């Protein structure tokens, strides 16, 4: 029971290892191992969550070696909730891909998708739990490398190019993170986050420029990996050219984990969200406010549904950055809740869009006219997720936006609340026409096909079940955010310095 944290990282990695060798022999075996592994990992995550909610935050020293030399894993209520989210979403995506999901009926990638998805699962868990800078760096790097692979897993021309762009930019970011880590180690003498944080205030007096450089490098480095504007340029290509299962993982989980890593570093080292009174907070606020509106605006112009969803992710990352940068308990809790909401919503959107694309053979938004008749359940799931993105009450999107907005007013930055509203309006302007066209558009092909398809048999049942589960979760977490939200509020109040 007390080795669960390590299991959360090692179990998926071990499964990935097995699949890498055995999968070449039998694709069925690879799929089976993958599905079993994600279910087991979900159980591990839930157990960790139960332990943390009853016994309080958990600290685990890997191999029994204590800091400052050993690696410490630290799990509080927020991290535990995210671990469950990670396991659940990855599990659902794996189930989707294993049961007929995705745009292509003949995946050319063999078993590599499972390998990389599972490695990502393990390394992201590692990022969430990491208690020291170097371990964090290693885990972030593993996640990034596997992400590049997830983009290009189908080896199409566009994907390879996007993956390469992602690799270059990500590599530069990695370099920055390494340099920042080195700087912090240099000036404080510690890699363990709490210890380095304790030494930081003195270090900043001794080495002010190094401190500023470190904070700036961390922000840009993680900003690139999390898709903060203007460092987002790799994202639209990468998330749109990847197969939908990969996009769901990338948009839903990978970028979030990087934002959370930044928040953790800021809090651990500088004691408050985005360095207290540093000008960096203002910069991040401005960037995130712009991102919220510009991301949505750029999505509105898109005709390719996957690029539309990718730009929408850029916009929503703005919400999360804004919430963290504002720093008031409601705002931070709202940002954490938005990590959960957006992960669920974006993966639902990508996965249902994937089912559409598979049916129509095209990613053009105008080609899905009337598909709601043929695929009512899939379209309903997309509609629910779209309403969530707009912030319709009853969905989790509303809850997180509400908390961030109230937190913005609390924190004295009302512009964020206005920007949330403007962004939601623009989100409505491109999501709603898609839903309307899908259900109310007239298409002879759809009507003929709809007549032949009985209710519930519109596509492979496994993948259909996955999008339905996601849509239901969106509504459930929208109507009963209680436990998770209270947990996030408590965590954010505990983490942040008192106002």
């Amino acid at each position, binding site marked *: 029971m007390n080795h669960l944290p390590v299991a959360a990282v090692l179990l998926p990695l071990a499964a990935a290892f097995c699949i890498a060798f055995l999968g070449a022999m039998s694709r069925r075996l690879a799929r089976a191992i993958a599905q079993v592994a994600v279910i087991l990992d979900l159980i591990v995550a839930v157990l960790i969550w139960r332990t943390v909610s009853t016994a309080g935050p958990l600290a685990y020293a890997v191999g029994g070696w204590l800091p400052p030399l050993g690696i410490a894993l630290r799990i509080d209520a927020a991290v535990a909730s995210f671990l469950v989210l990670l396991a659940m979403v990855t599990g659902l995506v794996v189930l989707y891909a294993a049961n007929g999901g995705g745009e292509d009926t003949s995946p050319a990638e063999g078993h590599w998708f499972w390998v990389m998805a599972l490695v990502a699962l393990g390394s992201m868990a590692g990022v969430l739990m990491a208690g020291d800078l170097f371990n964090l760096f290693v885990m972030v790097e593993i996640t990034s490398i596997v992400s590049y692979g997830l983009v290009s897993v189908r080896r199409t021309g566009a994907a390879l190019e996007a993956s390469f762009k992602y690799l270059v930019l990500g590599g530069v970011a990695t370099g920055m993170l390494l340099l920042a880590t080195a700087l912090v180690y240099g000036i404080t003498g510690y890699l363990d986050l709490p210890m380095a944080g304790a030494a930081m205030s003195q270090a900043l007096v001794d080495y002010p420029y190094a401190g500023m450089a470190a904070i700036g490098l961390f922000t840009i480095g993680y900003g690139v990996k999390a898709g903060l504007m203007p460092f987002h340029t790799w994202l639209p290509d990468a998330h749109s050219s990847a197969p939908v299962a990969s996009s769901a993982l990338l948009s839903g989980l990978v970028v979030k984990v990087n934002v959370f890593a930044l928040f953790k570093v800021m809090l651990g080292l500088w004691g408050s969200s985005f360095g207290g009174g540093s000008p960096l907070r203002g910069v991040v606020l401005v960037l995130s406010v712009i991102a919220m509106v510009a991301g949505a605006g750029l999505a509105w112009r898109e005709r390719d549904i996957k690029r539309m969803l990718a730009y929408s992710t850029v916009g929503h990352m703005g919400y999360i950055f804004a919430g963290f940068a504002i720093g008031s308990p409601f705002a931070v809790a709202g940002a954490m809740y938005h990590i959960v909401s957006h992960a669920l919503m974006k993966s639902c959107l990508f996965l249902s869009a994937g089912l559409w694309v598979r049916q129509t053979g095209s990613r053009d938004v105008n080609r899905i006219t009337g598909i709601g008749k043929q695929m009512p359940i899939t379209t309903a799931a997309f509609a629910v997720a779209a309403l969530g993105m*707009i*912030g*319709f*009450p*009853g969905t989790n999107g509303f*809850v997180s*936006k*509400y*908390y961030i*907005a*109230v937190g913005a*007013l*609390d924190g004295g930055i*009302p512009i964020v*609340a*206005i920007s949330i*509203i403007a962004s*939601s*309006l623009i989100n*409505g*302007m491109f999501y*709603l026409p898609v839903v*309307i066209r899908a259900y*109310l558009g*007239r298409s002879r092909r759809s009507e003929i096909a709809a007549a032949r398809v009985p209710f519930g048999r519109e596509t492979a049942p496994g993948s259909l079940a996955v999008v339905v589960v996601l849509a239901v979760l969106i509504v459930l977490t*929208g*109507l*009963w*955010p*209680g436990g998770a*939200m*209270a947990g996030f*509020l408590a965590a954010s109040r505990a983490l942040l310095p008192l106002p």
Partner: protein
Amino acid sequence: MEAELVNSWIPGAIAFLPLLATIGVFVLGDQRAQIRDGLVVITSAAVVALAAAMYPAISAGHVLVSRIMELAPSLTMIFRVDVFGFYVTLVAAAVWLMVTIYSLGYMEGEHAQTRFYAFFLLTLSGALGSFMASDLFTLFMFFELMSLPAYVLVIHEQTPQAMRAGVKYLFMTIAGSLAFFFGLVAIQGMTGSLDLNQVGKITEAGPLATGAFIAFVIAFGMKAGMVPLHVWLSDAHPVAPSPASALLSGVMLKTGAYGLFRVIYGIYGAEFFRAAGWSTWLQIIAAVTILLGSAVAITQTDLKRRLAYSSIGQMGYILLAMGLMTERAMVGGAYHIFAHAVVKSCLFLSAGSIIRQTGLRDVRDFGGLGYRMPLTMACFTMCALTIAGIPPMNGFVSEWALMQGAFDAGLSGYAVVLMLSALMNAVYYFTIVITAYFGKPRHAEHVGEMHDEHGIIPHVTTEAPPQIIPKRHFQWLREAPPQMLVPMLILATASVIFSLIPNNWPLEMAQQSAKLLLGR
């Protein structure tokens, strides 16, 4: 004034019963149309019965509360029904029941009936939930639940015109919702609570308080058809099928007015509202709405567009009452919620009846219609008399109260506005009535042939195309079937009977509501 709070399951049941019934409607679908239709009617009737069942407790002075759930700290779903809420809920539910019965006749043979009835019920749930909401979040949630499904009702015909009107409606609704969201967040930020019953916490008209108020005016005003946010109304109401138009004009517009009533009198408070000078602004906007709505209605020749603009003008009366803030004005405004709901829905139902049975939509073609559809036109005439404010009809009661209220406030200018409006109403309603009874049809000899040759009369736009009738089957009497007639007659009777009988129940309710809102 603290009334006794009583926990009750009834408000929750009223709000959720139609929601559950929607699932039933989808499941039953077009295959079991009769059972599905029966389910819709039974649900509407049950909701009316439940609403009426609240009367004993309400008249004893209690306030009924249903706590549904607490989503998160400060986000709760609670229903709280006081006199005002009860009154509006019962009126809305009763009107909805009449329209439901009418729909059974009207929608026969139409496409996408399951979709229509399902979203019909969702809109009902949303409207009633809004009337019973205890706090801003509940109000927001049910307001959205009402507004979004109403889109599907508006675009039911799916003609290009309907889709355009629908898009306009949808985006204005979403803009309104986001304004509502801003107000919600601002109120939470300023007072720490979203309750609709927290007068006195906001003490100064700072930028946030003002901004929040403007946001609420945008959100609710847009829904109520306030100028200049009324532009969706004149397109959406005509293109929707007539039962939907009746509900949009009869009930949905009222939720906007109701929400604004609650925000002004329940959160900001009457004193603050007057002291901040906002009441003057509201009065001016209301006066503009009244005059503009009535004036433009005169210029419209399409019957449903004329009725739509008339609704805009009439909603101005209610907004004016909100702005005048004297007790008699508030009584007038509250009574007008009842009067207009009954009358406007009946007018739209008769319009639907005329269009469906004869295919005529242009008011200049209504010559002789009074004899071809005697009962329908009788209903129309009664309602027209009511709206124009002829005593002893309902409309007179509310307009008289409003005028007295204007004098009470010392602002007799508004009484002049009301009289002008009454005059304009008379002009555009009575011309229709006169044409119907004393006019000759524009193409008198060719009415039968028009149906025969084209099947579609050139200026008919988006209603169901009239049936092609060969000349030898040309009927003089084209009255509507009983399912459509009976609700219209009941509504028309309601528009006149309450002011005749000694016990004017809606008036009593309106008086108590006014007292409640003003805190006396």
